[in-house]
Every structure is written in C-alpha cells, then in structure tokens.
C-alpha cells in the first residue's frame, strides 16, 4: 500500500473506476488478440452477471445479515420483465434496452420493497423460509405465466428477446454497481448494516433505524439482481423458469458464503471462479461424466468450508477497493453466527 500514499485523494477514491477502465481495456485487447471463441466469451459474461447478482445478496446477507433464499426469484423477475420489454417493444433498439434495464431494476426493487415490509421483521431461519417461499411462488407463476401473457412462454420457456447485451454493457453495468456498493459499504450506511448483522438489538439501541436500513439493503440488493436478470435476458436467447429455481438461489448463497460474508472482493472472485469452474469441468469430464460436476463442486464446497469456515476472503477486501480515508477500522471479522455460540441471550436482556 506504500505507493498509494502519494496519490491525490480524489484519485484514491476513484481508483476503482480507473482500475475498471484498465481491466476493460486489457480484457478486450486479450480477446481480440487471442480470438477467444464465442463460448468462453459467453462464459465470462455469465460470470459477470452472476457476480453482479451475488453482489446484491452480499449486501443483503453478507453485510446486513438478512438470510435470503429468494434471490433467484428476484433474478427471474428482472429477467422476465427485461425480456418482456425487450421482446415486445425493443426489437433491438438501444433506447428500449435502457428502458428495459430501468424497468427490470425498478420493478424488481419495488416488489422487494412490498415483500420486505412484512417479512424483514423475521429473523434468520424464519426469514430464510419466507424468502424461499417467495422464490417458489415466482417459479410457479412463471411456469403458468403464458395463460395470462402468452409471450412469456410459461413452462415452454421464453424466446425472442433481442440479444444486444454485449461484454461492454455487462462489464460496465457490473463495474458501476460495484463502485456504488464499495462507496455505500464504507459509509455510515455500510456501518449501520454491519451493526445490524452483528447485533440488531444493540444497533437499535445505538440510534440505528434498523427497519429502514434492512429495507434499503434488501431493496438495493434485489434491484441489483434484477439488473443482472435484465442483462441475462439480453445475452441468452432462452429464458426458462427452471433456470431460476431454488437451486439458483443456492448458487447465489454459496457464492456469498464461500467468498466470505462482508467482503465484496470475495463475492466477485467466487462468482467468477464458480462459473468458470462449472464450465471448465464440462471439458475436463467430457459428456459421459458431466453429471459428476455436481459431486465435484459439492466436494470442493465441503473442503473449503472445513478449511476456511470464514470464507475465502473472511470479511477483507483487496487494498485497491478501500480508499485511504476509510482504511482504518476497515477490517470486518467473521459474523457471530459463524464464530459459533457467542450469541447466547441471557434473561438479563
């Protein structure tokens, strides 16, 4: 970190955007130099979309401690709303793509708000069950959606969304959200969320309006995965309800937990690693043994969780993400749920 000390403050804060330009330039240069095939380009896009969606859950669960199993449901809402707008009105125009992005993000956020009002007062496991229920409702509704809106395709799947989300769109959507998240996390908002994760009662007693912060975190996180859904719909020509079932919700959850709760770097690295691992295994195993993917990644998860229960990054961030002005006091440890048995409530409270 020594060489960073000499940076002017504004550059220090914006370093993450500068880094974004650098990464973008390098990746596009490498792609055109190596003539990477369309398949791997698509895998990278998928990785970025997963990373974007996982950032949403990272805010909800990793930072605010609200256990959600319904993340795939919000992903689906974003994808279908975006896909519907794109397929019905868009027909490939860029203006309509932007409208689809806004519609998908805002509507997902709004539904999260409506759902959050009653269920965010639930704690841990109960919240998990309620959100799981929501995810299942969304899946069933989508399975039967063609009876109301035929173009959604129901259980036959939806096609016809113009495929106009290229690497540039996906990369910059991801990076801008990442930038906003980084800033929020190192503000009083992020600290309030973390306080709620650590001890909701104490946070309340310290003047934190816990309902407000939980709702904002939930809505922001869900809107983010809604955005990821819109991008997905414009990158993959076929939407099907089974791509958004509860296994998908577990994917998001696993990425956040394995990456380390309370770490944006961990979430992003794990999301990318996860997608590339799954696609890589396809080649290593070959068609005959493809089903063994499930066994291999499950084993890998078990090993990771035994060796590093606090997650790969355990609440730390890459240095470049943390501006100097907030570097002190940054480290977030492992949340109490993971450290085990520290949270016994006594009758005194």
């Amino acid at each position: 970190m020594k060489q960073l000390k000499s940076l002017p403050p504004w550059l220090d804060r914006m370093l993450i955007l500068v880094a974004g330009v650098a990464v973008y330039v390098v990746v596009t240069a490498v792609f055109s130099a190596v003539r990477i095939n369309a398949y791997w380009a698509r895998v990278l896009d998928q990785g970025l979309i997963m990373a974007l969606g996982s950032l949403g859950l990272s805010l909800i669960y990793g930072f605010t401690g609200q256990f959600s199993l319904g993340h795939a449901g919000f992903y689906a809402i974003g994808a279908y709303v975006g896909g519907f707008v794109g397929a019905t009105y868009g027909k490939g125009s860029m203006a309509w793509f932007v409208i689809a992005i806004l519609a998908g993000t805002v509507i997902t956020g709004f539904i999260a708000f409506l759902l959050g009002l009653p269920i965010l007062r639930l704690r841990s496991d109960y919240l998990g069950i309620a959100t799981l229920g929501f995810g299942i409702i969304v899946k069933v509704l989508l399975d039967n959606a063609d009876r109301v809106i035929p173009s959604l395709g129901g259980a036959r799947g939806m096609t016809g969304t113009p495929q106009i989300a290229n690497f540039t769109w996906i990369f910059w959507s991801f990076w801008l959200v990442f930038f906003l998240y980084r800033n929020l996390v190192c503000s009083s908002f992020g600290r309030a969320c973390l306080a709620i994760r650590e001890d909701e009662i104490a946070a309340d007693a310290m003047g934190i309006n816990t309902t407000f912060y939980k709702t904002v975190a939930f809505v922001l996180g869900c809107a983010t995965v809604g955005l990821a859904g819109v991008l997905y719909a414009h990158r993959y020509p076929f939407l099907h309800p089974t791509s958004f079932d509860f296994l998908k919700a577990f994917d998001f959850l696993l990425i956040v937990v394995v990456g380390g709760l309370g770490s944006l770097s961990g979430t992003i690295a794990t999301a990318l690693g996860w997608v590339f691992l799954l696609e890589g295994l396809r080649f290593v195993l070959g068609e005959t043994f493809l089903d063994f993917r499930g066994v291999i990644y499950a084993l890998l998860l078990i090993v990771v969780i035994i060796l590093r229960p606090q997650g790969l990054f355990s609440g730390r961030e890459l240095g470049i993400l943390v501006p100097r002005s907030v570097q002190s006091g940054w480290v977030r440890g492992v949340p109490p749920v993971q450290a085990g048995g520290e949270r016994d409530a006594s009758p005194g409270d």
Partner: protein
Amino acid sequence: MPALEIKGLTKFFGGLRAVHNFHLTLEEGELVGLIGPNGAGKTTVFNMITGMLPPSQGSIFTDGKNLVGLPPFRVTQLGIARTFQNIRLFAGTTVLNNVLVPISFRIGYGLGSAAVQAPPYLRHEDEARADARELLQTLGLGGREEDLARNLPYGMQRRLEIARALASRPRILLLDEPAAGMNPSEVATMVDLIRYVKEKFQLTVFLIEHQMGMVMNLCPRIVVMDFGEIIAEGTPAEIQSNERVLEAYLGRRGRVLARTPGEEAVS
C-alpha cells in the same frame, strides 16, 4: 426541568407483575444508583426507558417529550444512551467501527452523497473519524482502534460499551451493571471512569449495579427495588440502615431464627 421523569411505570409479563408503579425523577447532572436482588425488575425498568419493552402503564418524560411508544433508536436520538448487562458489542467489527455506528445518525450526509463519495460525505466522514478516535483516547482505548471488538480483554470491552454509548452524545447515560464480573481494582478504575465521563460530558447517570461497595461509593442517591417495587430511596447511609432493604437482601431476622429443622425441607 428534570432530566428524566418517570411516573407510575408498570410492566406485566402475562400475570407476572415485573415492575409496579415506579416513580423516579432524575435531576440534571445527578448520579443515581438502582439496586435490588436478582429479578427485582431493574433491567426491565431500563428496557422500558430505552423503548425496548413497551410499558403496560405509566409515562417517561425527558426534555418535555413522552418516550412511551417510541422505538429504541428514537429514544437514543433524543439523548438517552445505554450499555448492556451482558456485553453486546458489534463483536466482529473493529473497535473504531463500533464507535462510528452511533455517530452515524448525527452525520450530515445522505445515501446519495455516500454512493458517489461527494464532498459532504468526505467532510463528515473525516469529522466522525476524528470524533471517534478522540472518544476512544478519552476512554483509554487509544491504540486499539484496529482490533476486533471481540479480541479486547473483558475490562476494555466494558469500556468500549461506554464509549459506544457516549458516541451518540447522550444527555442521560444508563449503565446496566458496568462492573459485573470485575475484580476490586478494576471496579475502582470503573468508578473513576464513570465519575470522569460524567463530568467531562456533563451527563446524568443512572446505573444498575450489584457490587454494593461500588454503588455506595459512587452514587449520592440510591433507589432500591424488590419484587418490582421501589422499597427505599436515599443516601448510601440511609439505605445501609434501612430495615426493608436489609430484609430484601438478607431475609427477615425473626423468620430465619424461628425456623425449625423440619421446615427447611418444606420451604
């Protein structure tokens, strides 16, 4: 005007009357101790003042406002901060972060300004950090800012709880057994610390404590509760010689002596 005025505070848990008709007026700058045997209802009183439990009856006034029905975060924002009997720090974050949390609600920047790190964010963030560091220094926690709260030794965790409560700039500080589990020399340090912060931050302090020596030494006025009711109130000397207090703590003299050997099994 009194700092805190509690009238007729009553709490039922189902059929159990945990607190009954609790009256107390805290004058500005007073230091009052609340004692009583286990289960007397002391923490319940604290929980009602801070909005964590809704009272069944009664009113709590501070600064002309009735606190009954307000959520805990509003009560804190109105200038009443508390610590917890069993320490409830934000254990997995740094000491500095713990103190920064209550500063949040009086920081003058919004979500939008934080999202793009606009000038208001930068200005207030620097101020908040300077505040937090100074406070930690004052409470003898300087140099531990980067440690995780859970890694502090016990005595320091107690002090960090007080620092965190002070960070919300309260007028009234409620301390729930600040010296629980401490050895005599640590208790003496805690007494000095409470006196010091009370003067420095011009606080009204209301504390629950089990260590008699500490309360007698620290509080000019003491309130004693038993079975949810105030049974005595006065100076340490008055309390020490009060019949009902002795009875609550030690039992009634006559009854113990009159007890026959067979009776013990029954009671």
